């Protein structure tokens, strides 16, 4: 094989600490290398053209590019060599940027290391073979997990694009966190006026199947052909016939059920519809509080239901859906602030979360839109907002900035003044992060027009003093400790990954960061893709996001799905295992260890042999390292390819 080597300067990113010309010169001495050069930006158009020309001029059979990580540009260069008529697998990359030039400044050592990496790449390349993908047909349905604003957007965009959508929502209604909000920043327009119609669209869209109060039990298959097992949790109400009239809820005598929609400001009934605009508007029994389910006595709801849909015997149900792509929009949870003992740890009723305050502000909320202290129902005069509760705090394991608390706190301060003109709001903050369009103007308005008192410092302690709360903080600009007598304290609690995020990630086979947020394919270039083909991300499951960003990602994920489904057939990755039928002795160890059931036993002239189902094989290579005689080889990562890399590095 005639090999060409291109060593990239990446501007000064590589050249500054690697002598690229020396690397190219060393490469020229390697067996097989007939052409080697250093280039300014190999990924640029002239850089790529140079590769194409060199392939033609030197009749190259394979190309090595030493530049950035293959996670960045492997696809780019594979297309380049393809343009020049080479099979795209006759290409290798040496990562001399992320793994060399960026991690140390010793130019001699870096150059030396780069030469090694290029040698490794050429040795491997010499053992590469042209690989050809297989085509397979796909199921053009899409699963959207999570019915918050990101999931709703993704579902509607896909459905409008003509795809059949299965939307699975964990709670009994879609709407997510946004449905709980009173107003949105920086426009202070009504949250439910924006979201409500979109929720109705979901309910009415002919292409959308909605499973509310359901969870993902199992995911099998691969891009184009996933098989999803959905658990429909028991609601004890036959939703086919429930009209959402709400009589059951009115009459239910169990009045102390947990009201999660209202963030537990007050209680709801054991049988309930979370809020009037719920989609679907169906009742559900909370078995923890239903006397009928607990003690077998009561049965009021069954008596009063006009359509007779109460079913105390209902069990969880499982349905299987086949789809070709998945959009994950599982959102976020609020940080459990009660770990802050210094803020009372939940012992003081008048210390509440920002989302609880939001429900209090909402006209459809439990207080009818009136701001009242939970302890005594009085209107507060001094309201203290504390920012960064569970954000930017290593000591509670949340060192990241949630990013939208500054904005909603400014909004809540403005709304407080609107509701209670005689009130005074105080905001303890560390830095104000208002980096969106019209965002900074908005926080300025809270200060300038609404006289919100911004105090730069964290709060160390809250404790009751009479019927007030004493908030003791710092004003670092004044350089001292300050105290505020507060009637109500609102904590701007940060966002964290939703509780089930890691479990779902394991089912989806996608990765997540140490906080449980899902990892995107590339932080800049693949913001909604994951490393698992056919699985996309939307909204805050990838990291805390405000509404506009979540919606944008919902649409982006939908466009990725529509793009994927624009072809009738997909090409399977040819980096799969292959059995050398002569060498196989039919022991079945590969079949035993394959996690995907991608290897089956076949009969070959009366002898048992292994056979790989190419479209199922995911290319992990567990079989290859299991087979003692090396009869099953993962293409593009064969024993010989890896051994050649080892040998290139370790020469006795």
């Amino acid at each position, binding site marked *: 094989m005639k090999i060409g080597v291109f060593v990239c300067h990446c501007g000064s990113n590589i050249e500054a600490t690697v002598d690229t010309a020396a690397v190219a010169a060393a490469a020229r001495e390697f067996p097989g290398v007939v052409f080697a050069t250093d280039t300014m930006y190999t990924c640029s158009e002239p850089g790529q053209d140079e590769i194409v020309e060199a392939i033609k001029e030197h009749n190259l059979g394979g190309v090595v590019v030493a530049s950035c990580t293959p996670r960045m540009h492997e696809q780019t260069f594979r297309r380049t060599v393809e343009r020049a008529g080479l099979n795209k697998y006759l290409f290798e990359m040496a990562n001399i940027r992320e793994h060399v030039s960026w991690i140390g400044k010793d130019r001699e050592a870096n150059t030396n290391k780069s030469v090694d990496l290029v040698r490794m790449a050429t040795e491997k390349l010499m053992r590469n073979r042209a690989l050809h993908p297989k085509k397979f047909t796909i199921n053009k349905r899409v699963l959207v997990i999570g019915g918050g604003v990101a999931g709703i957007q993704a579902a509607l965009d896909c459905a409008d694009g003509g795809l059949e959508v299965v939307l699975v929502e964990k709670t009994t209604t879609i709407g997510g966190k946004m449905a709980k909000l009173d107003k949105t920043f920086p426009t202070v327009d009504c949250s439910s006026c924006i979201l409500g119609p979109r929720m109705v669209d979901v309910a009415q869209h002919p292409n959308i199947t909605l499973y509310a109060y359901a969870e993902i039990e199992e995911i099998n298959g691969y891009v184009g052909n996933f098989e999803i097992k959905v658990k429909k949790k028991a609601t004890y109400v036959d939703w086919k016939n429930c009209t959402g009239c709400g009589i059951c809820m009115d009459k239910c005598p169990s009045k102390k059920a947990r009201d999660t929609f209202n963030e537990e400001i007050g209680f709801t009934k054991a049988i309930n519809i979370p809020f009037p605009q719920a989609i679907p508007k169906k009742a559900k029994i909370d078995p923890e509080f239903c006397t009928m389910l607990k003690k077998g006595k009561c049965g009021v709801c069954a008596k009063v239901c006009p359509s007779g849909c109460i079913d105390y015997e209902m069990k969880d149900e499982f349905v299987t859906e086949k789809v070709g792509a998945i959009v994950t929009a599982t959102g976020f949870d609020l940080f459990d602030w009660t770990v802050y003992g210094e803020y009372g740890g939940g012992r003081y009723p008048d210390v509440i979360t920002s989302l609880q305050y939001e429900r209090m502000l909402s006209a459809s909320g439990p207080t009818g839109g009136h701001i009242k202290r939970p302890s005594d129902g009085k209107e507060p005069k001094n309201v203290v907002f504390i920012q960064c509760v569970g954000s930017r705090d290593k000591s509670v394991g949340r060192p990241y900035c949630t990013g939208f608390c500054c904005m909603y706190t400014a909004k809540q301060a403005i709304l407080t003044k609107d509701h209670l003109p005689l009130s005074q709001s105080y905001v303890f903050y560390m830095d104000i992060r208002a980096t969106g369009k019209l965002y900074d103007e908005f926080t300025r308005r809270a200060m300038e027009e609404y006289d919100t008192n911004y105090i730069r410092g964290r709060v160390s302690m809250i404790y009751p003093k009479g019927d007030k709360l004493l908030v003791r903080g710092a004003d670092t600009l004044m350089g001292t400790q300050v105290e505020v007598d507060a009637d109500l304290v609102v904590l701007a609690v940060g966002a964290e990954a939703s509780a089930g995020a890691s479990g779902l990630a394991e089912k989806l086979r996608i990765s997540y960061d140490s906080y449980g947020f899902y990892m995107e394919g590339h932080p800049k270039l693949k913001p909604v893709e994951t490393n698992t083909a056919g699985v996309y991300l939307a909204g805050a499951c990838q990291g805390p996001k405000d509404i506009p960003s979540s919606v944008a990602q919902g649409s982006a994920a939908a466009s990725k799905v529509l793009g994927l489904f624009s072809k009738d057939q997909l090409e399977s990755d040819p980096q799969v295992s292959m059995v*050398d039928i002569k060498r196989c*002795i039919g*022991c079945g160890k590969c079949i035993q260890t394959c996690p995907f059931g991608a290897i089956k036993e076949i009969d070959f002239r009366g002898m048992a042999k292994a056979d790989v189902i190419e479209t199922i094989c995911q290319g992990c290579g567990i079989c290859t390292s299991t087979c003692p005689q090396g009869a099953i080889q993962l293409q593009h990562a064969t024993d010989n390819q890896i051994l050649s890399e080892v040998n290139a590095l370790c020469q006795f």
Partner: protein
Amino acid sequence: MKFQKELKDSIRKALPELDVVIGWCGSFDPLHATPHFIRREEDIEKLEIGPLSVHNLATYLPGLRGKKVGIVVKGCDSRSVIELLQEKLIARDDITIFGFPCTGVVDQAKIKKALGYVGNVESCDMSDKSVVIVAAGKAHSLELSDVLADKCHSCRYPDAIISDIFVGDKSGEAVPAPADYEALATFENLSLPDRFGFWLKELDRCIRCYACRSACPLCVCRDHCAAESREPHWLSQENNVRDKLMFQVIHAYHLAGRCTECGECQRACPVDIPVLMLKQKMNKEIRDIFKYEAGVDPEETPPLLSFKMEEENITEKDW
């Protein structure tokens, strides 16, 4: 041997249903036995079992796949049969296992070492305690226990663990003591450089004949052994210690969780390299980490072909 006749009778009874029965018979001199393939009734008489029945006949089973095979096994051999069954390389229905209570087999190397060259062996008389060899008209007497194979001294399974027909009286339940690996422990007292030097010195003798592999009942790859293939190309064909040692590591690793320590590899080695020790080391670690012993239960899964989400006995490095 007392039950030799009983064994012959049982084989005679079973032979019509079988293509072949594998046992042992006399060889070039009275001190050696050789594997014996019984296909016809008249072959049965030549069958001999006793301290000279050293070969692990299970080695032949995968090659006779599809045939109806009878096999005479010592306790240790039966573990190899179990291992082959577990890996589905032989079908239980196709084989008929004849077991007998083994009292140990000799190690020819020890006899050779004790006697030196003695000329043509004329007769060999084995009792429970002693071995009397007459060679070149002269009688040599040895204590049997001095010339028994090492594995017999710590044998925990003298009776076949699995058998269809068992002749003679079982010598009792398996001894539930773990293999003690005394020699291994002694070796591990050496410093690391000494160990390294030891293997380089030992393997320097290796003539790459692969008798160790051919004798191994679990080297089921046969003609497709990684040692001599170019695809994958693990080893060169050069005469260097590196590749010779590498092969021994490959052998040991491929046997991890499978090897029953029958010792055939080491017995077969013409230049007496202690290759069994590497497998024993592997087995010891497998036993310590996974509480697993190969060749006792055909329904088990070898530890390297399975896993647990939480591994009780693996402590990962803390960085």
